[in-house]
């Protein structure tokens, strides 16, 4: 068993002091001398043609410094799927048409916020309202309103995944189930809303944008394109970020409007979304109409699965195109299906674009899949744990033609869950335990962004006093990426955490990284940082070996600020002395190490997968229909744990967010308008409703991960909703297939059940 000096130990956040003292500066807090305040005018119609825009009254309002419309931004369209230009379909500012309530039409910059708001009222836009469509199944019908002229039947993207022969598989099945599910939207609700501060230097034609983002590199590239600048004429800086959860992955209106307005006025411009804008004009979790068919042999072995998904994609492609693939992939996860067929359709609707959100495609697939497996087990009279054990993925399992699963702690997780359920024994009345298995990507091997750079790059510089500067664009949005990277660098170099100084989130000084999505930072940036640290360490070892005149058969090791012989650890040198000598030996040049990581030879999906099982116990109140989660027990495999307390934070935060998806959070719509765009009417899980959570590790060693580590941030969001629906079924015998499981739905289902039971057979 390897002994580690830094990783594997509870390690407080490296930004902790700043965050508990209020000193941490977020984009939201920033001001600059001469700064103007920007506001965005948005469409009040779900679908309309723009006839004319008159900005003259707004422009003549005292205090207004600039107004921009599509006259400035032109016909440019933007999007993150840069490999396919036709999918970059979002106008920077709307030119001819608006396609959802909230589509940006114009923006103003003024000397204060009140004047900016007043100016918005003075912009006269004449619209010709068009028929609109809000449901994906209606949107694909012949004669439905068309959102984009060039896209027939509003079918934005289609995806097909297939292996084996699903039809043949179903022929061999003894039991078959077909079910339909409807999955809802969910709002990310980052407590810091989207916001940006732009400053333009007319002398050098360079723009600096401080922004609340989880993908500084994407914003840099997309903003440069949107403003006709060279990529490196744009510097994007991510200050402390008040979370993202997938909602800050793309280029947003605050970013390009602030940029344009700063260039036009020559003054810094700040734009912050209101909470209402955050709910109505940012992104949302993708709603999906799901059809699932599963076939099993009499002993419970799965022989075939088929899935069809119609996603309510909203008005533009956004990152929802990736989701369409992922939800198909996750519909066959984390079980062994010899035969599988998936067809997905991303459909335009007149609503804000649905896009990436924590658990990206997995949470939807998991709810449906785990509900159906539970129903199948009930049909067949099989135990819910046993049927899962029979079909669970295992180490080195190959998903036919898709990917190889290397490490996999799922079988062990199922053992632990089985024991837990046995220990729990007989439950009180109206209590139920439901299960769900899950697995998730540790980063995606997708390059729809078409980056020519490594997926993750890092640089390590060692100064004369031994202080190590780490440069990484890994986006710490609260998950603790900076702390994780510091720990990985310290472990590899054999120094302490306070020898590390982190530089992240600035595109002008940090090597590339694609950002915090697909749960990729620990594995991908972790590998790049580890490699950079190893490169620097090798240079120290050259000097140390020569100083120690060690026999060539000995290997060197670094740990606890010493460099020593692995097999004779008492023989060694101080790290600090070696650094001084190494820099002298290089004629005073710093020790620099570089690392980069792009997955190779790992298929087309992900270099590694996390796994786990969750058991949710609920109590259902038959009078009110209210579900209370009593506790959540999770057996989780994220490979080698780097920072146990950060892992726990990810697990419990995921449970909170996924429980909201399961029973309390609901975006209510009427004719494309969000009816509850505030935190009073959109209900997050609070202190009182959060259950106690117990998590046990199923440790594995992932060969592709840094020190064997895998993801933990997203996969754990996937099981909670399905497990909760299964628990409700076991508690009171009703099956709900369209979360959230609100009291209303549960009461109606209970009533229906009661009526059926009373009616003569």
């Amino acid at each position, binding site marked *: 068993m390897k002994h580690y000096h830094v990783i594997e130990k*509870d390690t*407080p*956040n490296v*930004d*902790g*002091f*700043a*965050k*508990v*003292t*209020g*000193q*941490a*500066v*977020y984009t*939201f*807090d920033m001001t600059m001398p001469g700064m103007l305040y920007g506001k965005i005018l948005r469409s009040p119609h779900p679908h309309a043609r723009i006839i004319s825009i008159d900005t003259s009254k707004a422009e003549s309002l005292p205090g207004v410094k600039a107004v921009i419309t599509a006259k400035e931004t032109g016909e440019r369209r933007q999007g993150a799927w840069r490999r396919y230009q036709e999918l970059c379909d979002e106008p920077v500012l709307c030119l001819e048409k608006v396609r959802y309530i909230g589509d940006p039409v114009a923006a103003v910059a003024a000397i204060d916020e009140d004047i900016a708001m007043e100016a918005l009222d003075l912009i006269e836009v004449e619209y010709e309202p068009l028929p609109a469509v809000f449901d994906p199944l209606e949107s694909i019908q012949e004669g439905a309103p068309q959102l984009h002229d060039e896209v027939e039947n509003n079918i934005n993207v289609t995806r097909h995944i297939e292996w084996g022969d699903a039809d043949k598989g179903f022929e061999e099945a003894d039991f078959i189930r077909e079910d339909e599910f409807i999955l809802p939207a969910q709002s990310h*609700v*980052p*407590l*810091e*809303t989207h916001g940006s501060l732009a400053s333009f230097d007319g002398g050098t034609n360079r723009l600096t944008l401080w922004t609340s983002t989880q993908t500084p590199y994407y914003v840099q590239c997309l903003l440069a394109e949107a403003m006709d600048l060279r990529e490196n004429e744009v510097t994007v800086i991510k200050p*402390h*970020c*008040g*979370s993202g*959860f997938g909602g800050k992955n793309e280029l947003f209106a605050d970013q390009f409007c602030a940029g344009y307005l700063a260039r036009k006025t020559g003054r810094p411009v700040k734009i912050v979304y*209101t*909470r209402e804008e955050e709910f109505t004009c940012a992104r949302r979790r993708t709603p999906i109409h799901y059809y699932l068919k599963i076939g099993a042999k009499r002993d419970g072995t799965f022989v075939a699965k088929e899935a069809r998904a119609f996603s309510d994609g909203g008005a533009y492609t956004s990152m929802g195109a990736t989701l369409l693939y992922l939800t198909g992939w996750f519909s066959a996860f984390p079980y062994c299906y010899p035969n599988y067929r998936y067809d997905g359709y991303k459909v335009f609707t007149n609503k804000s674009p649905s896009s990436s959100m924590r658990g990206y495609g997995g949470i939807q697939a998991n709810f449906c899949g785990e509900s159906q497996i539970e129903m199948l087990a009930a049909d067949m009279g099989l135990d819910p744990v046993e049927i899962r054990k029979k079909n669970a993925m295992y180490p080195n399992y190959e998903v036919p033609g898709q990917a190889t699963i290397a490490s996999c702690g799922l079988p062990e997780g199922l053992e632990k869950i089985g024991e837990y359920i046995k220990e729990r024994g007989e439950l009180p009345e109206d209590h139920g335990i439901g299960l769900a298995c899950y697995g998730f990507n540790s980063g995606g091997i997708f390059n729809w962004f078409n980056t020519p750079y490594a997926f993750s790059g890092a640089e390590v510089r060692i100064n004369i006093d031994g202080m190590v500067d780490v440069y990484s664009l890994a986006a710490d*949005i*609260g*998950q*603790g990426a900076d702390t994780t990277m510091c720990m990985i660098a310290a472990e590899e170099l054999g120094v302490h955490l306070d020898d590390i100084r982190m530089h992240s989130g600035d595109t002008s000084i940090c090597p590339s990284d694609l950002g915090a999505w697909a749960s990729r930072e620990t594995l991908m940036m972790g590998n790049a940082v580890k490699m950079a640290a190893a490169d620097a360490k090798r240079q120290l070892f050259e000097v140390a070996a020569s100083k120690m005149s060690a026999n060539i058969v000995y290997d060197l090791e670094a740990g606890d600020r010493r460099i020593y012989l692995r097999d004779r650890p008492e023989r060694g040198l101080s790290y600090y002395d070696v650094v001084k000598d190494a820099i002298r030996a290089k004629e005073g040049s710093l020790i620099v190490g570089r690392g980069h990581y792009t997955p190779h030879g790992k298929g087309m999906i992900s270099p590694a997968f996390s796994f786990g099982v969750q058991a949710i116990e609920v109590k259902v109140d038959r009078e009110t229909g209210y579900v209370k989660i009593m506790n959540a027990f999770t057996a989780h495999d994220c490979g080698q744990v780097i920072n146990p*307390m*950060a892992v*726990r*934070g990810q*697990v*419990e*935060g*995921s*449970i*909170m*967010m996924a429980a909201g998806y399961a029973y309390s959070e609901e975006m209510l719509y009427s004719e494309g308008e969000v009816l509850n765009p*505030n*935190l*009073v009417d959109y209900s*997050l899980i*609070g*202190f*009182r409703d*959060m259950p*106690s*959570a117990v998590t046990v590790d199923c440790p594995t060693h992932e060969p592709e991960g840094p020190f064997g580590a895998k993801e933990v941030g997203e996969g754990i969001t996937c099981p909670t909703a399905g497990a909760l629906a299964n628990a409700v079924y076991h508690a009171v015998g009703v099956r709900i297939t369209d979360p959230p499981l609100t009291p209303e739905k549960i009461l109606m289902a209970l009533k229906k059940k009661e009526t059926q039971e009373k009616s003569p057979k």
Partner: protein
Amino acid sequence: MKRELKITVNGDLYELYVDPGMLLVEVLRDRLGLTGTKRGCNSMSCGVCTVILDGKAVKSCTILALQANGKNVTTIEGMANGSKLHPIQQSFIDHWAFQCGFCTSGQIMAAKALLDENPNPTREEIKHTMNGHLCRCTGYNMIIEAILDAANRLQEEVK
């Protein structure tokens, strides 16, 4: 017509002229530069703007600045003594009781008001009192543990 506001914040007396419609959070952030206090909802439902006004935790986005005239306000910037952290702040660090940190100032101020009033709260009392303070990152349990630990630390200090 602006009105005079005399307000003591973190022990310092400020004399300002403010619009009657100005909120306490706006005075703190925009006039005094105390940006540790955040704004998240403007509807009294998230709690990230919580400060302590004459000993009570209040949501500063729903209080007019003039309502605080002549009163004492403590914000997150008033918690540490130089670089020595208040025990609640230290507990939050030690328990990973924050992630993005945007709600943290509000959580800590609410916890301070809670512990000032009830130095030895139960888990249930903490859940009940803190319920109006949203956190989208942590799942709350680690905040509860930080507050329980802070209560112990504060009692140790008294001994």
